[in-house]
């Protein structure tokens, strides 16, 4: 398979397995930071899962089009939007890093690799957006 065919396959897998992945990322986040559950409870967890779904929907096209900047611009927008609602940029970055780990564990190596550039650009964009 060519690189772009792998990228398209990765993008399609992200959308097809969106529910599973969003739950996995949320579970991983809560497992890494048990304080979250104490803070936000089940409601916070559900909301987090919804946010992860949304992140994955925006990650997919960046992967398919091999355009990490596309995801980076979304993250910048997201940080400002969530910042206005009291969510820190660090939380956003952590969720993206966790997404990278989850995809590495659950996707074939070549597909996971195809998602990496976009996820890293997204994580880096948090700093840019916070600096603004």
């Amino acid at each position, binding site marked *: 398979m060519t690189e772009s065919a792998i990228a398209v396959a990765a993008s399609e897998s992200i959308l097809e397995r969106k529910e599973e992945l969003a739950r996995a990322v949320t579970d991983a986040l809560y497992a890494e930071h048990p304080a979250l559950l*104490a*803070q*936000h*409870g*089940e*409601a*916070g967890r559900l*909301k987090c899962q919804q946010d992860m779904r949304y992140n994955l929907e925006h990650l997919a096209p960046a992967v398919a089009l091999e355009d990490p900047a596309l995801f980076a611009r979304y993250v910048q927008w997201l940080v400002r939007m969530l910042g206005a*609602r*009291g969510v820190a940029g660090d939380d956003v970055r952590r969720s993206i890093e966790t997404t990278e780990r989850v995809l590495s564990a659950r996707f074939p190596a070549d597909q996971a690799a195809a998602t990496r550039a976009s996820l890293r650009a997204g994580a880096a964009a948090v700093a840019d957006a916070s600096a603004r």
Partner: protein
Amino acid sequence: MPAGTVRVNKPRVGNGLHACLRGFPAAVIEVATGGVVADSNGKLESLLGREIIGYPFAELLDVTSQAKWTRLLSRDPGSTESSLFECVVQRRGTLELRTFAAVWGNDSGEERLWLLEYSRDLRLEPLYEELGAANSELVQIQRELAKERSRLAQALGVQQSAVRLRDQVLAIVAHDLRGPLDRILASAALLREESLDSGSREKLLELIARTAAGMNVMVRDLVDAASIDAGRLAIDRREVEVPALVNATAEMFRLQAEAKGLALTCSTATTVSVLADQARVLQVMGNLLANAIRLTAGGGRITLAAEAAGDNVVFSVADTGPGIGADDIPHLFERFWQAQRRHRGGAGLGLAIAKGIVEAHGGRIWVESEVGSGSTFYFTVPVTPMATGG
């Protein structure tokens, strides 16, 4: 102060909310500057299952929301702008998301923060998607309806003017056919006279034949116009030599032109042939030539020409007549255009038929003219495909 309004000195706690907010279906909370709940309409109490008046509002929130709450409280109380405060409240051991509109207000000289529960349901988002899709469909329907309405209005206008035109045409046709018919009837009546000599008889028969032939042309024009209108004008294409065609037309009209003192000349600089219905092209040139002869004063000049231009032959009929006003030129080839004018010379179908025939051949027809300097009518007919190779 308006009559009936009573100033009340509000006690610190428990009585501050206006009566109408008591019945409000969602939570309304009044918070004093220190962050202590001063009053509430009771809705949040029932949700949380605890007392809140007199307690710090922060006590109801989870840790992260407490940080946001502190930021909200520290904002400039003078600001009248509202903001949305989304927070997690602790409800009987579980946590729930709630959104409030937060507004600073002045209550009898004391700054207060009012919290009005804004939206209970975060599941609204999918509904908005549905709403958006429905709206998109409505927009499309509206646009199609607007287009249809404008089309109908236009069609109605066209139909109304067509009806007006038809009425005019009927009047004209009735008049134009009535004249010759009367002459034929009168001649026929005269023929009954037994005293008539054979010379006069001959003349009357000649008159009847000529008048009937004229009527025949008018009827043919009407039929042609109807055929063109219905898009079923029969064209019988054959190879036709251009010089012969032009000369034949000129010969047909030579006597008529000379009788009026007009010089009729031909100029054909091409020997190509066209693929055309000879009788129909003759009809077009004949219509143009007859108009030129009718409208050009004695001593004038009429020139019939044809020359090759690319894949077409351009035929032209030039006269030294009165010319055509710029306002009239765009309408010249419309049916019955002439019928709408006071000074007319025929039913007004000739040029419309000429246009129909030329277009049925895949050509086009136009005129160049100015008042006072004559007119030149042009039309094109495609050359025989074989000939283009040479």
